[in-house]
């Protein structure tokens, strides 16, 4: 029977949200006074679950994680999935001891090295070699352990030529590769990897996934892998757990967990509206409304064989600015299907604007999509809003003999389902008179 290497029991982490850091001196005195008299903390409203869709009240406490129980066996690659803000990062921070839990306990066998963000602790003035030592010792290794692995690290990262160059001259790709190599080769018993693969190029991603597989299957080491990239999770992990609003929603085999997660993500929102006060944006720009529409109606489910509109309504409170609205469309697997911007709103006067963008019929494949919306105000460059998953919708295929799939009813592959033109190539010898 494999050895249990991580045991998490009733783990919980309470965070104070809303405004922190203003007026704390008076709050602290108040709180201290209350505690002296044996009263409850006057500023706490405990008991709320971590639901980020609601606006946080001032000084409210939220359980970022609550009641988490699970075990990890040696050599497992455990995928950790969940929406943004579900509590994945908090879990990793607790496991890597960056922050301490409010209650519960974690028991760990062996050393934990986390690759939360590549290049943590890299100092720009220090050379690659010095940074390898720096980074390795930050992860709790001894110098001689680092020295023993130095050549492997350098080889894997492909930085041999630049080993004595200050890290500030490294490209971002080199930094990522080096950071990953350090963590992967220093052979901690438990390796925590958080979204690092998103940074490198495709070749590196492949290499990194291969290395992680090797570390776990051959080295018998345990990997905790956090990602929004479901295909990477599927490829790499032997088990997965899904966190939802700070609680453990599902743990088990990878496929059902991913399916569970995807179902949860696609609680579709085809239309959103805000009043001016609560509207997202900044002091210049407020997004008042955004919706997916088809046939003139707002909808959660669109037919891919008809035009799909995304409509926005926003308020601009400055004049003379160039406003660039953009949408990115993400598939349920987490990759971006396309990104698009509206470059034609120059020198706008203040006021309320309605814009519409159309995804032509015969473009999308069936599936679930989410929309990222962003707006940039130019001169100076100012990101007014950048919000992931602002809308989510399902795309299905209605009855249409003109469609890409024609009359075929089976599964149809492809990331997109663009309708292409097939034309007749006429060979001269076959020309027939009609």
């Amino acid at each position, binding site marked *: 029977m494999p050895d249990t290497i991580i045991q998490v029991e009733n783990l919980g982490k309470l965070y104070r949200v809303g405004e*922190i850091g203003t007026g704390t001196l008076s709050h602290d005195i108040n709180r201290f006074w209350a505690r002296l008299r044996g009263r409850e903390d006057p500023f706490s409203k405990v008991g709320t679950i971590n639901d980020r869709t609601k606006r946080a009240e001032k000084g409210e406490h939220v359980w970022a994680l609550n009641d988490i129980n699970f075990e990890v066996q040696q050599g497992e690659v455990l995928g950790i999935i969940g929406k943004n803000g579900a509590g994945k990062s908090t879990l990793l921070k607790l496991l*890597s001891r960056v922050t301490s839990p409010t209650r519960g306990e974690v028991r760990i066998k062996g050393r934990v090295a986390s690759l939360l*963000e590549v290049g943590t602790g890299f100092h720009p003035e220090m050379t690659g070699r010095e940074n390898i030592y720096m980074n390795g010792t930050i992860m*709790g290794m001894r110098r001689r352990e680092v020295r023993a692995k130095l050549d492997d690290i350098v080889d894997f990262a492909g930085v041999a030529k630049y080993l004595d160059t200050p890290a500030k001259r490294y490209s971002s790709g080199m930094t990522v590769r080096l950071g990953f190599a350090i963590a992967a080769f220093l052979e901690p018993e438990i390796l925590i990897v958080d979204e690092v693969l998103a940074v490198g190029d495709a070749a590196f991603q492949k290499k990194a996934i291969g290395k992680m597989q090797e570390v776990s299957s051959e080295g018998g080491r345990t990997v905790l892998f956090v990602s929004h990239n479901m295909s990477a999770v599927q490829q790499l992990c032997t088990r997965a757990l899904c966190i939802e609003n700070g609680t453990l929603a599902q743990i088990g085999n990878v496929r059902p967990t991913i399916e569970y997660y995807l179902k949860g993500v696609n609680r579709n929102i085809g239309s959103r509206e805000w009043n001016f006060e609560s509207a997202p944006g900044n002091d210049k720009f407020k997004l008042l409304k955004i919706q997916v529409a088809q046939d003139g109606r707002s909808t959660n489910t669109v037919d891919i064989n008809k035009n799909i509109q995304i409509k926005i309504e926003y308020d601009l409170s400055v004049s003379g600015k160039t406003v660039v609205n953009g949408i990115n469309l993400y598939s349920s697997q987490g990759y971006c299907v396309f990104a698009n911007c509206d470059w034609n709103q120059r020198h706008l006067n203040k006021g309320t604007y309605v814009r519409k963008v159309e995804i032509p019929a015969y473009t999308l494949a069936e599936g679930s999509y989410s929309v990222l919306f962003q707006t940039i105000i130019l001169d100076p460059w100012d990101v007014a809003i950048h919000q992931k998953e602002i809308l989510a919708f399902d795309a299905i295929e209605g009855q249409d003999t003109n469609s890409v799939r024609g009359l075929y009813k089976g599964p149809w592959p492809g990331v997109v389902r663009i309708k292409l033109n097939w034309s007749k190539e006429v060979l001269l010898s076959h020309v027939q008179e009609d």
Partner: protein
Amino acid sequence: MASDKFLEEDRWDLVIQPNKSLLNIPWADIWRYRDLWRMFVKRDVITVYKQTILGPIWYVLQPVLTTLVFMLVFGRIAGLSTDGVPQVLFYLSGITIWNYFSESFTNTSKTFIENAQIFGKVYFPRLILPLAKVSSGLIKFLIQLILFLGFWSYFLIATETIQPNAYVLLTPVYVVLMAGLGLGFGIIFTSLTTKYKDLIFLLQFGVQLLMYATPVIYPLSSVPEKYRPFILANPITSIIEGFKYGFLGVGEFPWEHLMYSVCFTAIILWLGVVIFNRTERSFIDTV
């Protein structure tokens, strides 16, 4: 049954729990991460060396220039007494040892603010960072001490203005005390600044003001009787006086003053470690 239970718990290398005890200081971890300590010291030295044109020459230039200014302002213009010791030695000795304290203090007092980003990413015993700052400060101090010893040897051989005595041997004690005080105050300050950011401003001129409350530019003997208790309450006073007493043979050196400084340092250091340890746990949640 009880022994089974014991074995069961003993298998784990690490148990992460909510921290209840303030005194649960990770000494074992600090020892395990001693190589990181070394790397941080190296980093501090490298950064100074690489980012400035003159590099470590600044270490020498700074006390020399300060001494010149002090000689001009306090010696010539204000005409303050130096207990009959050559002004160069009097000021340089004060500056050398004072600098080590103030450097240790100001450098460690930025621990949390300067390292918030890395603290949010990875665990290591946070106390390593201020310890490394104090250690790298020691290198700077030693360079400045050599400078001082150079001047001192000259005056010792060429003139008869100074009478060093066996109390010179206490110098390592003074160094440890200065490091301890700087570290203790520094980590208390950095812990408080995570919550009350205005304290940073207080710190900047506070250290300067503290220097005037310490016999750096004047001898303790010139302090009017009614202010003496205040100056003596300053734990650094006896250290600087003791340093000058040993090397230059002037000033006063009652053992009870030194004992006071030792106790003061021990308390500040203990308090600092406890507060720092407490802050370290919640810091990432409050920034």
